[in-house]
């Protein structure tokens, strides 16, 4: 039942004291006339309402969540505690600098650590999410070419295996997108890249390891081809968990990078945000960075980069998310960062190895932190699709992997276990996958019906889009 249907006139919480000064209200020209319908509820009812909704939600805390490309690792509890310290939550963003030295230290330290991990020279945490970071990075590339009066560069190269945000961000930055097909091994097709590299190319956007979970062997050649034609290399950090502490994107030839702090650095996804899409860059782009950067040692202060692209949003980013990331990096340190990465890769390879005798792997070779299965054969033989398996996993206590992505693999299921899962959890998940494979041969009908243990079954998404009902309406 919706919160509005639980509302009863006259109920409520006692939150505010009586007014201790003369009451002032707007004059008629600005006075609200339309009625408000916000619910009227006691605190008991509100509390129970949201507890009920919480029961119908599923987080990493509820169990295995191998959602490929999303890095659903465990979210340490101390991160939340540190982000709740009043010394962070009660600070106004426009306080004088000498009263926010702690906040500046957080920003400066995070910048230093993340630059070291990624091989970049400067870093901003202003962008609020990965896609926001992509847009920021592309605006840096644009500012760079503009500063050189190199205005003929109107195109960004994006592989067809890329996240949808890459081409969408390129369009927002005013670029046209050159999509290049992947080669048979799922990596960048060098010949196709060479064919499009020219003096109209502003840059390349690349995820490495890529979205099929493979480290591109030719990475140095790829970034060189782009540099040689005068373009810059953009690193989509969605998969940084697979290389952090082991390889630095800066050493692979990338000039600008975004990180998904809410993936790699353990901050929770919150049902879709808030995240943080930190953007790092090499020296040649540092003067164009957005917003402000922190300088100084004993006395820290904000400094505006010389030729800044401006603001991406208000203030300094999702600051409390940054506090959580700093807590995490301090905890892991120089030993723990590579160890997390290596175990993420180990867990993925372990699961892949234990499934590849029955499930078809899109690319049967060493994977990085995730692997992609193609259920095309299974579907042809039994009628059971990637969707059916995904939904049946829910009935078996697991969150499904990412489905139908990347687009270049048919009937794709993309599995990313992360390093924070134990061998038993992986073994249990493997057993479930194997059981469902058997079931697909014997009783495919049952899988078409899944899930059956959830409050609702599969929902009519086509109907939802055709006749959108996007809000409750009062009678």
């Amino acid at each position: 039942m919706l919160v509005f249907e639980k509302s009863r006139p006259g109920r409520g919480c006692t939150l505010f004291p009586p007014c201790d000064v003369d009451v002032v209200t707007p004059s008629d020209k600005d006075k609200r006339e339309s009625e408000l319908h916000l619910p009227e509820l006691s605190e008991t009812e509100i509390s129970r309402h949201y507890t009920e909704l919480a029961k119908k939600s599923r987080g990493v805390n509820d169990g295995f969540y191998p959602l490929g490309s999303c890095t659903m690792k465990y979210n340490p509890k101390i991160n939340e505690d540190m982000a709740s310290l009043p010394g962070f939550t009660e600070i106004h963003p426009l306080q004088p600098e000498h009263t926010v030295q702690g906040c500046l230290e957080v920003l400066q330290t995070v910048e230093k650590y993340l630059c070291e991990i990624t091989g970049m020279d400067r870093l901003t945490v202003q962008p609020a999410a990965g896609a926001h970071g992509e847009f920021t990075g592309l605006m840096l590339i644009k500012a760079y070419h503009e500063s050189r009066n190199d205005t003929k560069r109107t195109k960004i190269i994006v592989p067809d295996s890329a996240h949808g945000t890459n081409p969408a961000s390129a369009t927002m930055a005013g670029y046209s997108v050159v999509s290049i097909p992947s080669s048979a091994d799922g990596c960048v097709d060098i010949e196709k890249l060479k064919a499009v590299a020219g003096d109209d190319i502003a840059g390349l956007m690349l995820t490495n390891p890529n979205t099929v979970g493979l480290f591109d062997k030719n990475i140095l050649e790829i970034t060189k081809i782009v540099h040689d034609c005068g373009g810059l290399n953009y690193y989509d950090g969605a998969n940084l968990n697979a290389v952090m502490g082991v390889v630095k994107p800066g050493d692979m030839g990338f000039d600008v990078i975004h990180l998904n702090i809410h993936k790699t650095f353990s901050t929770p996804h919150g049902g879709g945000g808030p995240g943080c899409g930190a953007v790092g860059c090499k020296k040649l782009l540092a003067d164009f960075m957005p917003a402000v950067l922190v300088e100084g040692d004993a006395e820290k202060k904000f400094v505006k980069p010389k030729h800044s692209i401006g603001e991406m949003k208000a203030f300094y980013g999702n600051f409390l998310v940054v506090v959580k990331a700093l807590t995490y990096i301090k905890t892991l340190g120089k030993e723990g960062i590579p160890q997390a990465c290596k175990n993420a890769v180990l867990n993925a390879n372990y699961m892949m190895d234990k499934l590849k005798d029955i499930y078809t792997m899109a690319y049967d070779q060493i994977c990085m932190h995730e692997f992609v299965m193609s259920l095309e054969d299974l579907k042809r033989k039994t009628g059971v699709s990637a969707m059916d398996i995904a939904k049946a996993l829910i009935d078996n206590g697991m969150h499904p992997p990412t489905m139908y992505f990347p687009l270049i693999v048919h009937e794709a299921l993309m599995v990313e276990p992360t390093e924070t899962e134990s061998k038993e959890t992986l073994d249990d998940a493997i057993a479930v996958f194997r059981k469902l494979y058997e079931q697909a041969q014997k009783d495919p009908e049952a899988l078409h019906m899944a899930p059956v243990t959830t409050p609702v079954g599969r929902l009519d998404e086509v109907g939802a889009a055709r006749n959108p009902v996007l809000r409750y309406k009062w009678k």
Partner: protein
Amino acid sequence: MGKYIPNTDAEQKAMLTEIGFSSFEDLFADAPKEVMLKGELNIPSGLSELQVRKDMTKIAEKNVIFPTIFRGAGAYRHFIPSIVKSVITKENFLTSYTPYQAETSQGVLQSIYEYQTMIADITGMDVSNASIYDGASGAAEAVAMCRERKRKKALVSALAHPDTIATIMTYCHGNGMDVEVVPAKDGLTDVEYIKKHIDQGTACVFVQHPNYYGNLEPAREIADITHEAGARYIMSVNPISLGILKSPREYGADIAVGDGQPLGLSIAFGGPYIGFMSCTDELVRRLPGRIVGETHDAKGRVGYVLTLQAREQHIRREKASSNVCSNQALCALAVGVYLSAVGKEGLKEVATLCMSKAHYMAKELEKIGFKPEYKTEFFHEFVTVSDVSSEKALKALEDNGILGGYPLDDKRILWCCTEVNGKCCIDKAVSILKEVK
């Protein structure tokens, strides 16, 4: 060193062996030798939880927490009911992903659907999205929504928040729209300027109300001028003000945006906050970001899904209406809980308290020589001019644990009051200022 890896070293080794590898290095065989990191990262060693807690607490203590704040300018300290934190720290919400798997995410989806309904209700608009990063980026997305093949110019009021204007500029530099800033006149957006500069190439007019100085704009008049020219009208509003001020719909807006921070989110050095966006039915398919809709399953049970995804980047790629993927879902949850807790009467109450306290403070300040710069009506922020330098005045307050208004220049200060500022604290601030020469 801290870690969150359950498997022991011995278990890790056994797993490696079991799948045919002799070491971790084997797993990275595809990476060229020359890019592999040699040696360690140049960051400190990892720490125990106890040490990290001490470290982070020490950093937090280097900040000054002001018990009393009269500064707004885009970030507002309001009272946050305890129920808000109690709900948003529930792990099922906190640690869940974007609700792509609807059957196992009905709670998150319903909470967003309720949030959308509440935003539509307070703004008076037909539909709302599931949130955007903050008020400034929401404003920039709204401007981009209005673009037509022959309409590429945005008229943006100079009295929007400076970060909002700057963000609109950044986005428009990307997408190729032209931004023309409408100057201020006597603390309000210059309506005559809009009349002169609006034309067939104008996509939208953007106004903040109450504006950056807290003043109430001639919002209805601007709506009429905008619509007469065939352009769209975007209003950025303070959500608390909607308890007593006309909704953007009542003023004639096509799109309403704003920052939802005042609705249950702490000031937190600037974030995370939340951008809300709502619009008329006509524009729904241009709305960026996630949208939740109601539907049903095969048995007829009502459920909620992410919908109208044909607008979005993962389907449309370079033709998408926006690149938004992650948004501020947990903040939307906080807003939903806050609005449920205050209810329709509470929102009026808190808005009235804010407006009344600000007017009281303005009156008291005027008595001691901090005169209101403008004669216009205002909500809970206002600008004073005085002979005393802003720096001196604010320093005197700071020495008494009070964060005064935001200095606009050496003589002008932008003040803000909310329901948390009691009369006694206002009186105290005024008495301190009275002594500043």
